[in-house]
């Protein structure tokens, strides 16, 4: 039964020329908005009844400047990554990893974790899908650690708000943690600690028909990502910037600077412990990171905090309980915690 009417859409709705021109126009509008950001916020601040330079004034200024800035940056990054991700899929990543040996496989898995579309709600099907297709357990873990921690939102916002040096440092150390922790878990040979039924699942080898993806589809993927991710994440941004504003305005520099300084060895484990029950998206974390660094906190300590909040997530452990024993989750959490502690200590010692 064929119904051509259902499939045919109006011609111009699928024209690449129209889509590309709209995208370029949107980009131009974005650049305009970015340039107007500072004068616009200055206007807003001059209307607000707060005394400039006071604690409240400092906090309000931080909030007023950072919310539109973070949201604008986020919009651009998410759109761009939506397009990049249309070149990748979980199934293709899995096929790339299935034949890989440990070592090289861990490196590939952690790197693919950055670009492969992943949402923690599908962590379980992903885990089973990887393991049952013959991806080694440690390689799967490298992917699971890297995907939420080192993602485009984190890197893009760090790049835009804190500077490229910090973004590159985070990328290198984040990938390092994912690669080494996954490799260690693989060496421990804990396949026996998976739930029994998981080991018996045999992945079907049904090839998914590759639909031809056009330029228009890729731009659409970017718009969809934009709507979906910014729609979910904006509230985290507001909360994150508000926390950053509170730190910026009210926490005395001497206090924070001394607690989170390099000399204070216990600050690293303290922030990691603090990060476990806290769960925030990377987009909400960056304004806090920015404010902490501004108050003189040591970079290693701040990086450890950010990694702990994004990579050590209690809700994800609960979800993973469906496929692995508590012992395996404990090993996973323990190894990742050690990795993050090592990053914090090492970084504070080296720089």
């Amino acid at each position: 039964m064929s119904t051509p009417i259902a499939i045919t859409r109006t011609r111009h709705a699928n024209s690449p020329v129209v889509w590309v021109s709209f995208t370029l126009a949107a980009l131009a509008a974005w650049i305009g908005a970015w340039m107007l950001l500072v004068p616009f916020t200055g206007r807003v601040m001059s209307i607000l009844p707060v005394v400039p330079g006071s604690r409240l004034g400092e906090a309000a200024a931080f909030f007023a400047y950072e919310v539109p800035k973070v949201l604008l940056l986020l919009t651009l990054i998410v759109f761009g990554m939506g397009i990049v991700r249309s070149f990748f899929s979980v199934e293709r990543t899995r096929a790339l990893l299935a034949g890989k040996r440990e070592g090289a496989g861990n490196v590939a898995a952690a790197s693919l974790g950055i670009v492969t579309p992943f949402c923690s709600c599908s962590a379980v099907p992903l885990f089973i899908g990887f393991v049952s297709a013959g991806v080694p357990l440690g390689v799967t873990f490298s992917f699971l650690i890297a995907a939420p921690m080192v993602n485009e939102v984190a890197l893009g916002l760090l790049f835009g708000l804190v500077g490229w040096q910090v973004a590159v440092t985070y990328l290198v150390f984040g990938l390092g943690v994912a690669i080494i922790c996954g490799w260690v878990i693989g060496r421990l040979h804990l396949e026996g600690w998976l739930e029994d039924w998981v080991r018996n699942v045999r992945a079907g080898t049904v090839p998914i028909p590759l639909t031809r993806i056009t330029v228009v589809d890729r731009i659409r993927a970017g718009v969809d990502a934009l709507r979906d991710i910014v729609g979910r994440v904006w509230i985290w941004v507001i909360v994150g910037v508000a926390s950053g504003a509170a730190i910026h305005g009210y926490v005395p520099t001497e206090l924070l600077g001394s607690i989170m300084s390099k000399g204070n060895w216990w600050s690293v484990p303290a922030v990691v412990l603090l990060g476990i029950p806290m769960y925030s998206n990377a987009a909400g974390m960056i304004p806090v990171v920015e404010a902490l660094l501004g108050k003189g906190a040591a970079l290693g300590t701040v990086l450890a905090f950010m990694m702990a909040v994004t990579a050590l997530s209690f809700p994800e452990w609960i979800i993973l309980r469906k496929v692995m024993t508590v012992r395996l989750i404990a090993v996973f959490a323990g190894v990742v915690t050690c990795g993050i502690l090592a990053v914090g200590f090492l970084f504070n010692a080296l720089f």
Partner: protein
Amino acid sequence: MKDVKVLGSGCKRCVATAEMIESEAARLGLAVHVEKVTDYAAIAGYGIASTPGIVIDGKVVHAGGLPKAGDVARWLSA
């Protein structure tokens, strides 16, 4: 009668996908039987690792993310 299976753990997108299939089928006047598969082992058995997935008459046509309405119409009328 087409047999359609929506693979997914019951996340928001999986529900939206099932609804989209039903509304597209109604629009096209096709008789379909939509079934949700939530068992993880069964989902993995189809060879997909990202949800929601769509299986029509035993064949995987889609994996990962909300499908486009136009594609759903194409799969249903194929």
